[in-house]
């Protein structure tokens, strides 16, 4: 039994190491003045919501959250609509160019978009004039390739008889997809939505380049700008920064805790085995 004791000690030490900074984020955001002593991690008083008011004075939290929401929602919509169609075609339809498309999809997962930031910036901001617009923000992320891959894997697992039966009944391909295949891959929709969510919600570099107007910036960008150049002017800069961090982190953490069943090893395993 000594072994299982050691196992749980390792596991819980690991968990503490992962979770403590989150706890400290919340504690720090509630402190009147920063207390960095070890005892400060377990505050006994002097808690306040002033830091949230302070960050809201500098950064329009509601507007930033709306911007993050539109950016993220647009990407999820594009990924679900066009990603399902592409995943279905890649898994179930024989058409010219399928192999090429699949190979390119895998290649895209290796070459991250950050490396192409200069040409994409030239195209979207300089050539198309989409700076400070939601479209410009969404465009480079519009269809998440990992999600397309997840859809393809799920559609591949369905038995072929299902499709041939529906087609014999005279159902068109769109109808087969909508009424036969899609209801069976509902878990994939949720997994792909979760996977897709963390991309744009947390993304910093691209919206940072595209948005110069404060009222177009998603929260990750406005908070980063606050950390970078305005923090010195707040009365309790760390408190205000951490309050902003809590607001930015909370939706993602809440989603993944609520839907943790849909973000398991096997879901991910099939999603990234490219």
């Amino acid at each position, binding site marked *: 039994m000594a072994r299982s004791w050691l196992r749980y000690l390792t596991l819980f030490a690991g968990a503490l190491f992962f979770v403590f900074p989150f706890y400290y984020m919340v504690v720090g955001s509630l402190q009147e003045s920063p207390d960095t002593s070890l005892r400060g991690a377990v505050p006994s008083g002097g808690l306040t919501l002033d830091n949230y008011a302070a960050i809201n004075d500098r950064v329009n939290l509601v507007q930033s959250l709306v911007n993050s929401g539109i950016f993220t929602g647009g990407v999820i919509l594009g990924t679900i609509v066009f990603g399902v169609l592409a995943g279905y075609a890649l898994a179930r339809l024989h058409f010219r*160019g399928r192999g090429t498309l699949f190979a390119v999809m895998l290649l895209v997962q290796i070459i991250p978009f950050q*490396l192409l930031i200069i040409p994409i910036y030239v195209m979207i901001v*300089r050539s198309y004039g989409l700076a400070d617009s939601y479209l410009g923000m969404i465009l480079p992320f519009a269809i998440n390739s990992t999600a397309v891959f997840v859809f393809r894997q799920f559609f591949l697992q369905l038995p072929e008889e299902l499709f041939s039966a529906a087609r014999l009944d005279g159902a068109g391909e769109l109808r087969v997809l909508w009424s036969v295949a899609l209801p069976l891959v509902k878990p994939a929709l949720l997994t792909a939505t979760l996977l897709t969510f963390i991309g744009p919600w947390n993304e910093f570099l691209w919206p940072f380049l595209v948005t110069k107007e404060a009222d177009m910036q998603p929260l990750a960008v406005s908070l980063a700008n606050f*950390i970078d150049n305005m923090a010195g002017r707040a009365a309790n800069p760390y408190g205000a920064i951490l309050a902003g961090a809590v607001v930015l982190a909370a939706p993602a953490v809440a989603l993944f805790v609520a839907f943790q069943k849909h973000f398991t090893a096997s879901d991910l395993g099939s999603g990234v085995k490219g």
Partner: protein
Amino acid sequence: MSIDTSTAPRPGSRPGEGAEPTPPPSARPRLAVLLGRQPLGIVFAAPYALFLAAVFAYPLGLAVWISFHDYFFAAPGATVERPFVGLDNYTAVLGDPAVRESFVNVAEFLVINVPLTVVLSLLLATALNGAVRGRALLRVAYYVPYVTASVALVAVWLFLFAQDGMVNEALGPLAPDPSWLVNSALAMPVIAVFVTWKQLGFFVLLYLAALQNVPKELYESAATDGASRFRSFWHVTVPGVRPATALVVILSTITGANLFTEPYLLTNGGGPNGASTSPVLVMYQKGIEQGSPDTAAAIGVLLVLGVLAISLVNKKLLEKD
């Protein structure tokens, strides 16, 4: 990069037309040869193919083109001359100490990040795999940093690793001087540890999936041979998850090549004195802040080549078995 969907999708083709397993004799065989048995697939896949062409293939080509020309930002609509300059941008980039330093920094990052990630995530996944109780809770605890924005997490680390932050308070007289984030020997290692910490949960999940594919019989025969727990870990688990390890190494390398937010915010723009800059940060500074996209594009092309080379080497090593 040609994607075959450009061969005119046929919106007029009746749905289900090409659905039969074998085309009937009356079908148009030449069309089937040209478009495939189910040409509707082209219509379904077209938006995604166009998307890949527009935000991947075309920018890749544009990056290469820009990197061989004297390119600068001009007012929209203005026609300006952008002469071909051959390898000038590349020689400028390779001769620039700031660029070279950023590549050395990423190498330092990878030397710390990759082994740490592989060892810790395999260790935690193995422990988690055998755990009966609290598995779901532990899993969530592990991947919470992975799903949270870097910007939010950097905020806490700034607080923890500040001059008078909790880490230094806890270390007392052992606290480094100058402090972590303003110490040129420690800034990059702190970034490497931060990224390891943030991504670890994802890699634990990856190893957890891989562990399910290691045959149970191998452990049983190792046990009957009297192998210790450590020996069976070393001789069964480690080789059994080798494909996952290769994937972890590739993905960590890609993360390293992408590094931007952490040096930008955690060490205040790659400081102190460029000790923690990354190539993407230099790309941003040169291309957008200083307005020379041509040299920045050259850095991007070099990074793409580097990532591809590492992936290929990794794939070759993996296929040796």
